[in-house]
Every structure is written in C-alpha cells, then in structure tokens.
C-alpha cells in the first residue's frame, strides 16, 4: 500500500514535468523546423539566367524618319538591343479575340504589333516580348535593366536600320496600364518595348505588372 502510493507519487510528479519538458522540446523542434523551412523558402529561389553578353551594334544603312508625306518605311524584320544582349527576329502580332495584345508564340522571339506604326516612321511603334517561359528567361528578360540613352536597333525588310535611344523605363500594374501613353499617337518616330514585370501571381499564372521602355529615334 505505502509502496504503491510512493510509486504512484513518484510517477505522478516526474510525469508532469516530463510532459511539460516534452511540450517545450516538441514546440521548439516545430518552431525550429518552421523557421528552417521559412528560411529555405525565403532564400532567393530565383532561377539564375546565363551571364549577360553585350552585343556589338548592328551595321547597315541608318535611315532616319522619312519626310512627312514620303513613302512608308519598310516593315521591321529584326531587333537588336546590344546593352542587354537581345537579338531577335520580329514576328507579327495582332489582337486576341478579347482585344488584348497578342504575344509571340515562343518566349525566345519578339514581335511587332501590326496595328502600330512601323518602327522609324512617325508614331509609336510597339514591340512586345516575353520576360520568361515556364522554365527560363525569355527574349526580354533584361528589358527592365535598360538605361536612358541605351540604343535599340530595328532592321527593316529593305536592309535599313532605325536607331532609337531609350528615354524612359517604367513599370505599371496591368490593371492600371497607361493605354494612351503606350499606344496613343505621337508626332515623332518612337518605339515602345513591352514585357512583363513585378510580382508573379501563381494562382492566375501571370505577372501583375508590365515593364514599358520608351525610346525615340535618333537621327
């Protein structure tokens, strides 16, 4: 009887402490695991792109905007942006059935919106390209790194080059896209380069913002 009581008492006391200690230990382990998990997932899990290769400027007869009333310039066929290593053919882009800008069929090529003026003629010519694919960088991955004054070359079907200088680099939320500034009429030869940017929304699988580079033809 006494012995049993002693045993019971001895068991009861350490059991409470043991449970409490276990709670502390389990709690700390859980918190530690959580912190570790958080730290691991917070680490910049940004896939690394290959190093930037700056390209030489293309060569060819540079033709500034034609005099008002002159014949139209030729269609754009390719794009070179030496400072961010972009060289791409230009596909034709139209509109989607919902009226949005069609995007290039692959992420490795840029496209000219055929509803916009031809690059190098009066007006705001529009070229769009992807920032990335599901697995890696797209043709305009480094577009947002362009600096004011950087050159952009558009080669046309007749072999002539239109040369632009970057004037502005902006990022806009897609739900506040400045349609008039990007697609509206301007009285001199300008270029808009469009890609995605900002936060990627994994539920809609799309970026929430657009990067827009404004450039003006240099003569």
């Amino acid at each position, binding site marked *: 009887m006494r012995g049993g009581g002693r045993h019971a008492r001895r068991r009861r006391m350490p059991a409470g402490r043991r*449970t*409490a200690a276990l709670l502390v230990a*389990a709690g700390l382990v859980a*918190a530690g695991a959580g912190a570790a998990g*958080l730290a691991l997932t917070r680490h910049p899990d940004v896939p690394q792109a290959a190093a930037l290769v700056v390209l030489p400027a293309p060569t060819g007869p540079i033709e500034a905007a034609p005099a008002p009333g002159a014949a139209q310039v030729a269609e754009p066929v390719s794009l070179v942006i030496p400072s961010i290593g972009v060289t791409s053919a230009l596909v034709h882009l139209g509109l989607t059935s919902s009226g949005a800008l069609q995007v290039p069929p692959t992420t490795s090529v840029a496209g000219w919106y055929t509803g916009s*003026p031809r690059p190098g003629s009066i007006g705001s010519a529009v070229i769009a390209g992807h920032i990335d694919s599901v697995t890696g960088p797209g043709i305009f991955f480094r577009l947002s790194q362009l600096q004011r004054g950087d050159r952009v070359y558009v080669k046309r079907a007749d072999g002539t080059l239109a040369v632009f200088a970057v004037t502005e680099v902006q990022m806009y939320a897609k739900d506040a*896209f400045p349609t008039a500034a990007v697609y509206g009429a301007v009285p001199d030869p300008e270029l808009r380069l469009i*890609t995605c940017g900002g936060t990627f929304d*994994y539920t809609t699988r799309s970026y929430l913002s657009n990067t827009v580079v404004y450039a003006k033809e240099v003569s």
Partner: protein
Amino acid sequence: MRFTRFARRIILLAALPLLLLAIPAASAATASAATATGWIRLAHLSPNTPAVDVYLYSFGDSSAQIVLHHVAYGTVSPYEQVPTGDYTVAMRAAGAAATSAPVLSASVDVVAGHAYTVAGLGPESGLRLQVLDDQLTTPSGQALVRIIQASLKQSVVSVNWGGRMLQSSLKFGAVSSYQTVSPGTATLTVSGGGGQTTASVPLAAGTVHTLVVLDGPAGLQIDDLLDAAGSGTAPAGGAATGFGGMAPRGPSSPLPWLAAIGAGLLLAAAGGLRLRARRVPAPAAAGKHRVPAARP
C-alpha cells in the same frame, strides 16, 4: 519578470517573418514620372513671301534653340521635341543677321504632351504667324484630318475625301478644324473657282493628318502631312508576356512555415509555463511530502 521577457521574445520571433514578408511588398511599388516635353514645328505657307530664316527661342534666352535657314513657301519642318515652357518664334528675311529685328514673331506656350505648328500664313502684305494647337489623340479606330488653305491662286477651295465633304469654302490663309473620318484610302478632291486637283490619300486608323493646299507650278498642289500616328486599335489592358519561370517562388508558401513557428512557440510557451508552475512552489511542497516518506 522572466515570463514577460519570454513573452516578448515569442512576439518578436513571431513578428520577424511578417516583417520579412513586408519588405518585398513595399519594394514592388514603382513611381512613375512623366517627362515634361511638347513638340513644335515651323511652317512657311505664304505663297508670295520670299524664303525666310525661322528662329525658335526659349523664353528669356537670347540665343536661338533652333534656327531653320532659307525656309521657302510650302516647307513644314518635322516636329522638334522641346521642354515645356514659353517660346518665341521669330521670322527674318533669309540671310538677315540673327541680331536684326525680326519681320514677325509669335509666342508659344508649350504644354506637356501637346504639339504646335507655328505657320506663316496669308499674303506677304498681311503675313501673320499663327500658332496652331495640333491634336494628338484620335477617337478609337478613326483618323483625324484638317486642312490648311495656303493657295493664293484659288482663294476659296472645297475639300472632299471619298465623297465626304471635309470642308467647303475654305478661304486663303484659313485653317479648318479637325474632322473625324473612318479610315481608308480614298480620292481627295480639292476644287476652287478655277478647276480642281485630285490625289489618292490614305487616312489610316489612329493617325492625324494635315492636308495643305498649296499653289503648285501649275494649279493646286496637295501636301499630305502625317502629324502623328499611334495604334489604329489600342490593345485592351496590359500584355501577357511571361510564364513565371524566372519569378521568385511562392509568395504564399511562407504561411505553413509561419503556422509551424507560431504553433511551436505556443507549445513551447505552454510547456515552459507548466515547468515553471511546477518548479516554483516545489521546494516547500515536495520537502513536506518527502520527509515522512524517507523516515522509515
């Protein structure tokens, strides 16, 4: 004392991940600043006025920003992008000294994003410099067109494009208002008292044109100026130009980890409290009980 410090630590630990989450959200906001510039172009549209030199001065600056030499009748310069502000346009006879008094001058207040044509209009005897506020926005899917009547030979003209009367009885030296037209290519007919002139003129969607009626070597001449161009149809919204392959991963993924940290800390705190609750009163209580148990 020790408990409050412990609690404070828990709160700090729990708050830290939230702070980490807030940083990228704050840096995502990007400011946008519009550049304050407008455009000016200069034109000589007075038929019997000899060539002129045209000077553009920024207000308060005596050295000209732009000088166009020997500008003859019918010449319209390309647009020059200039910072916003007040400007003076001065016309001098071709070859006259820059310091000589100008024949004519006009002032222009350049507003951001606006374009202006400063044109010498009328006959030489009544030459004037007129500042035209040029339009840059077209109704969606439409074209804009206006007419400057600069023919002295046909002092009154009517202008018809594809069967649509754009302007009737426009007098010499006058400028019509802008007309909105459905885009297309059509025949432009300019008719006056002494005959008419036709030309095929395309007016594309999203473009702004100025048609200048001039005295040609024989009869009328039409100068079609493309003032501005944009997208005929502006795409709706932004562009879907990314698939996320290079995006930083999982803005929503920290929640389970935060829950684990929170639950773990609560568990540890609960355990810690229980340990303390048993330890603090223990020496007295445990002593009483142990003494009789140990005596035999």
